[in-house]
């Protein structure tokens, strides 16, 4: 979340906790999978990784976003 906020220059801000409902939703959809691991600090943590379906979905979403934002930019420039 901090990374998102930094990269976007504080334009995109969200509560850090709202990450989890989103993660769970993606997990239910089968785009990512999660695993409990034990960290060297002794604490249990859940790490997530993209599944094959998730990678495909990411590609699809990315290209969709590209085309939509491209289209919007064009429209804005025309106006």
């Amino acid at each position, binding site marked *: 979340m901090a990374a998102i906020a930094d990269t976007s220059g504080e334009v995109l801000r969200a509560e850090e*906790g*709202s990450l*989890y409902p989103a993660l*769970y*939703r993606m997990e*239910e959809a089968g785009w990512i999978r999660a695993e409990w691991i034990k960290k060297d*600090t002794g*604490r249990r*943590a859940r790490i997530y990784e993209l599944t094959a379906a998730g990678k495909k979905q990411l590609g699809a979403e990315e290209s969709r976003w590209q085309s939509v934002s491209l289209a919007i930019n064009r429209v804005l420039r025309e106006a």
Partner: protein
Amino acid sequence: MSLWSRISNAVRGERLNREIAEELQSHIEEAIASGRDPDEARRAFGSILRQREASHTIRVAGWLESLLADVSFGWRQLCRNKITSAAAVLSLAIGIGSCVAAFRLIDALLWRPLPISGSSKLYVLSRQMTGLYGKPIEDGYWATPNFKLMRDAVKDQADLIAISDAERMDITWSGDRAGNDDIEKAHVVYVSGNMFPLFGLEPALGRLLIPADDRGPGAGPYAVLSWDYWNHRFGRDPNVLGHSLHIGDQTLEIIGVAPSDFTGTEKGTVTDIFLPLSMNSMATEDRADWHRIFLMLKPGVNPATALEPMRQHLSAVNRAFGSACSTCYRGDTKADIERFLNQKLVFHPAGAGISELQKDYRRLLGVLGLMVALVLLIACVNVANMMTAQAAARAQEMALRISIGAGRRRLVQLILCQSALLALLASALGAFFAAWSAPFVLSLVNPPDNPARLDLPADWRVLLFGFGLIILVVLLLGLLPALRASAVRPVAALKGGEDPHSSRRLMRGAIALQVAFCCLVLFLSSLFVTSFQRLENRPLGFSTDRLLLLQTVAGKGQLPVVWNQTADSLRAAPGVDSVAISGWPLLGRIKINSDISINGAPPSPTPAFFLNVSPGWLSTMKIPLISGRDFRPEDSSPGAAIVNETFVKTFFPGQNPIGRTFSRGVDQPLNKIVGVTRDVPDHDLREPNRAVFYVPLHAIDDKSAPQTASRPVNFATFTIHTEAKNPLALAESLRQIIAQRHNSLRVSNVTTQLDLIRDQTIRERMIATLAAFFAAVALLLAGIGLYAVLNYSVLQRRREIGIRMAIGSTRAGIVRIVTVDVLLMIALGGCVGIVLGFGAARYVASLFYQVKATDADMIALPACAILLTSLVATLPAVLRALRTDPTEILRAE
């Protein structure tokens, strides 16, 4: 992963919550550990509780979670009122269990299609005609020559198949598996050679009968065993092929075993052995109507258009066959012949098989089905009442739930969950009840020597029925209370209740309904029980005490003198009081009628039945002679005859019959009446006494030379009066005595006169037992229901009763307000029940014996039972009302 994990997460909701909390917590702790300010990290994270809730709903199947919550809530509700719930489950279980059991029986006997290909294209052919005594009858049996003509007439559109009913025959096995060539009984069925191929049946072993085996008399001495018989008689030994069995003087070779699920077309009897039609000696006789005719439509033939022309064609063939029969109508008048030929052919669908058991029990099972359905309805009404009362008590809770935002759908679900729980518990119990009771009821139908056997599988048909029943019960139980509860207006309910009478009105309607159903069940059962009692107590006119019957066969027949010698040796045995011989036993279901011609006149329209008996048979049976004498050893038939009172009334009204003569048809030798006996029921306990005459066992062909022309006797029954109370104790030793004489006489069946009479009343006994049972259950349930409703209403009106007492109402007044409307409902329900009962009784009138639905005591009996029950059920509530202490009530307010 997704749906399954959401479902499994729903079951472990608490653990999931902990898991999510742990993950969120570890996120924050990670942030702190990486050096962020704890407060800042928490703020940036947002509300943990909210995130957890949001995550939870994502990871859980919400509908399931709420369902589980409702189920556990419903379960707690049921546990709160343990006794009421147990009573509800028990009564529903009896209702559901009996319904499923009744369905299993009805389905197995009447509906389940035969395990053959094309069962929907199978019909059975019968004819409607005028029978004895001018009664219209429907006859399903045909002569083989007639069958062949008809088969050829319609062969383009349909195949006709001849199948005889199963007959319990005496068979012996030869070779190593016979051992001591003992007679045993087997159900033998004769089938035309085309049956197995047309039914699409494949052999389990060897081959099945084919048309070539059925070419002509004696052409196919082959037998096919049923799988069941092969299994229990031979333990599925494959070496059974090639062995031979003997029936009478025929030897037949086993060629195959039929498939395991095919037990014949006669529901209720499991066939043991299939033989070709032409192996039966009756197959060539024009006059022997002995087998059924089935019709299987050819593929592509439309039954709607093809059946009627085919019926007309077959009618013409049948009529031509009947008219051509030269030997059939000796001495009959033209009108009689015309009456006989006037037959109407009909097809009935026979995909579910055809049997006498079906005919006998169709209506009985219908009534049984009605009664169990009513019992289930009564139980449902009871439980629905209970739930309505509980719902009314929970009106405030419901109002609260709605006020804080529960959806009405959710409330309906809550209550339906509870009723589904009840129904499921009840059906689990009911399944056990059904699994036990269906075979039990079937076993009631079993005469000891010829048990009815029916496949009672618990397959998808039964499961589907059970499932449908559960859904119905859930809706019956829960829907009304659920809708009422969800219609609660929170404002009114929280203020102290809306119309307090509304739920009582509903429950009073339920009382009327229950009493009506209960009355119907009681009315029917009192009819059946009375029928049975009257039948059982019908005066017999002969003794049944200590009478052993040895039904005996003699292969190719033995002369009467041999039979008499055998009787003498039985007489000499210890423990034997007297011995006599008759052609067949009384009430043994055998009847043979004979024309009666007086003074050479044409036979009268009323026939008489006859029985061959030896001298001394009348005294052994304790049938009193009114006048004349018993047979003497020198009497023979034709010659001497003894007649009963009805015979005298019919043929010699107002005359002294002793010394008069009659003949059995025109131009037949004369019989001189030597004695007159009292009437006894001869073959069917249910039928009125018929004209019966007895002739000597000693039958002769030629009167001029009585000793040389004795006719051999193929079968007869030794009637033995024993000294011991239990006549069966002597059976084995007497059977040995007969076997030791080596005169080809063999006992084929052992029974007692008492058992024969019991067999006659099996159907009545069964329906009376079951009807009495269901009547008791219905009465009990209705009583409980009445008690519960009244009790509830008194509790609810406590305040009103207290006030009324305080302002001076008399005790009688209190009793009146508590009971008057309930009594009205009972009266209303009772009337409706009786009216329904009249309708139902009309449908089953054929099952009654000397009982009419309109008999006053038939109506009085259920009415009294209902009144008594309602009295007992109302008493506690009335007492509770009277014990109400006004001061206490008013103080509590």
